[in-house]
């Protein structure tokens, strides 16, 4: 009797095992990686980007996957812009997780992995970094508007207001350095004067010295293309010195006001315009889902990475329909150019250009009552 009981239990167990294994083999896994700022002064970016990726991945899988594939992602941390962790992350994602595509962020980490990406035919998508150096790199596609497009828009606005002298303050990082260069060149091209340029250490919190020098130079405007909390501490330091000149930059993370408080009011920055009040059904769905899960409306970073996962979905679908292997990065790359237009979470379509950039609506924000408010629009 005991033997019969054991045999029945074992048989039942084997049936369940067989069934579950069978179900799992119905869908193959499409793995992709994400190298984000999960720790350090830029961790706000990484967390919001990951939320966008997570929502999109869950939606795709709940809808049954695509082309026989369920989506699965691996997150790695470049510690807010460090290149060695980014490169280590790339190696782990490609050699252990075997991903054919990576969603990257921050300019220095992205640039640092591109030689390996090209060699291994791994497509990299950037939805967060803005350095003008990210143009014309094989296997790199940017869905974030880059500095060479957003910086002139901001500075032209201020030039039109009658400001003529500029001081710059930027972090010792790839993107801020190249954005500073772009800003200085553009401002001087307009006929303006750059009265001082100061570089600061990434992660600095005390800007008293830098602000003292800016105060002595008395510029009409201050351009600060630093990222994450660096720009927050810079704004705070400048305002504490009693300097009232408008401050403009290229970044505004959601935790800036935790450092600045009302000192950030008046800060200007241009970026792609993700309208949380859009009536586009897909946008509205994403905004509602994100808000329900996180208690706040999504920013454009979360939107970009949500959109990127859906772009991957389209690419996988195209490759599978063509009878190819979506785990092969070169086939995914080829699939982009079969039609470089993809449905955009911003409404309408996003179109990739051959130089690695894309077309998206850009707006100028001003911080008012500690919140970004659109004050000017431009389509590039």
């Amino acid at each position: 009797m005991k033997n019969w009981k054991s045999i029945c239990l074992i048989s039942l167990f084997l049936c369940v095992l067989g069934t579950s294994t069978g179900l799992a083999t119905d869908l193959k896994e499409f793995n992709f990686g994400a190298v984000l700022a999960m720790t350090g002064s830029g961790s706000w970016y990484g967390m919001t980007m990951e939320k966008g990726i997570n929502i999109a991945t869950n939606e795709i899988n709940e809808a049954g996957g695509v082309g026989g594939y369920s989506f699965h992602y691996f997150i790695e941390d470049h510690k807010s812009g460090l290149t060695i962790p980014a490169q280590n992350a790339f190696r782990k994602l490609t050699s252990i997780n075997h991903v054919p595509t990576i969603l990257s962020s921050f300019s220095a980490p992205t640039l640092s992995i591109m030689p390996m990406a090209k060699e291994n035919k791994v497509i990299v998508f950037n939805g967060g970094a803005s350095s003008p150096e990210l143009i014309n790199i094989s296997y790199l596609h940017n869905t974030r508007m880059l500095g060479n497009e957003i910086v002139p828009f901001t500075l032209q606005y201020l030039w039109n207001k009658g400001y003529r002298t500029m001081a710059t303050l930027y972090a010792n990082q790839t993107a801020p350095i190249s954005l500073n260069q772009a800003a200085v060149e553009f401002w001087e091209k307009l006929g303006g004067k750059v009265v001082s340029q100061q570089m600061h250490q990434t992660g600095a919190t005390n800007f008293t010295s830098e602000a003292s020098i800016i105060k002595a130079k008395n510029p009409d405007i201050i351009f600060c293309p630093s990222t994450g909390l660096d720009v927050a501490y810079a704004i705070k330091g400048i305002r504490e010195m009693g300097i009232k000149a408008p401050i403009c930059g290229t970044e505004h993370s959601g935790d800036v006001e935790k450092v600045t408080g009302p000192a950030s009011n008046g800060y200007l920055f241009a970026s792609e315009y993700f309208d949380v009040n859009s009536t586009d059904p897909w946008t509205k769905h994403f905004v509602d889902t994100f808000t329900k899960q996180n208690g706040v409306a999504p920013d454009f970073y979360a939107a970009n990475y949500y959109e990127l996962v859906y772009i991957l979905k389209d690419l996988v679908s195209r490759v599978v329909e063509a009878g190819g292997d979506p785990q092969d990065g070169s086939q995914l790359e080829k699939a982009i150019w079969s039609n470089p237009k993809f449905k955009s979470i911003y409404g309408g379509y996003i179109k990739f250009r051959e130089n690695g950039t894309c077309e998206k609506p850009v707006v100028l924000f001003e911080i008012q009552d500690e919140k970004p408010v659109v004050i000017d629009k431009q389509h590039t």
Partner: protein
Amino acid sequence: MGLFLQLLVSGFITGSVYALLGVSWGIIYNTSRTFHFAHGLVYTLAAYIIVLFVELSLPLIPSILIGLMGATVLGCAIEYFAYQPMREKKASQLAIFLTSLGIMIAGQSLIQLLFGPDPRPLKSFQLIPISIGPVTFTNINLFTVILIWIILVLVFIFLARTRSGMMIRAVSSNPEKATFIGIDSKKIFVLVFGIGSLLVGIASFLSVLDNPANPNIGVHALLMSFITVFLGGVGNLSGTVVAGVMLGIAESVMLIVLPTEYKVVMTFSILFLVILIKPEGLMGKKSA
């Protein structure tokens, strides 16, 4: 001239903070010769305690007092439960240093895990810039400088005029002889860890009035603490104070001629030059 004065005043404000940090670490090191790396963790924890209690709607003063108490208790606990047992087992200085480093790293990581990496501001003060001629500073800067100098004077009076202060100086000068005359070094060590931790807790609360707390704030505080001590001369707290102020002013005023990105390079260059020319520190005494 206006820029020079502004940088001088800004440097003095920063230097005052460095002086307090240096004295907080120096009183521990001078007495116990323990490279107390976990001092940075005490600084971080004090900031978080204050911010968290204010977030829980406790008034500011009680929150500060709890934060200072927390810092003091943690510092004493590290000495009593970690370093003292190791000394009794004749552990090497390197082993004690590694333990201290481990406590610092583990403690910071734990704070990050529990509270996240996001900055936690103390929303109690409005910063008001105050301008006197070409010089501008804030109300918090003014309060910081006044409080720091009052505390430094009190510390020196304590060390010079009280029985406990004299015992601390005796142990600092010669621990063996101090034992012979009946001073319990172990109790003195706990006392200096308590005082040092209280002082670093005060430095932390002054910092958090102006800047948000985050898990990594202790690192810079620790760095400036021991740089100031070695710059001023080990065993000489007056030297530490002078070194702190000089370092703050030098870092700031040098920016008239050097680009601002050289600030960190300057700090270590000054330390390197002083140690090269005068290894015992600015006001330290040469050992026999």
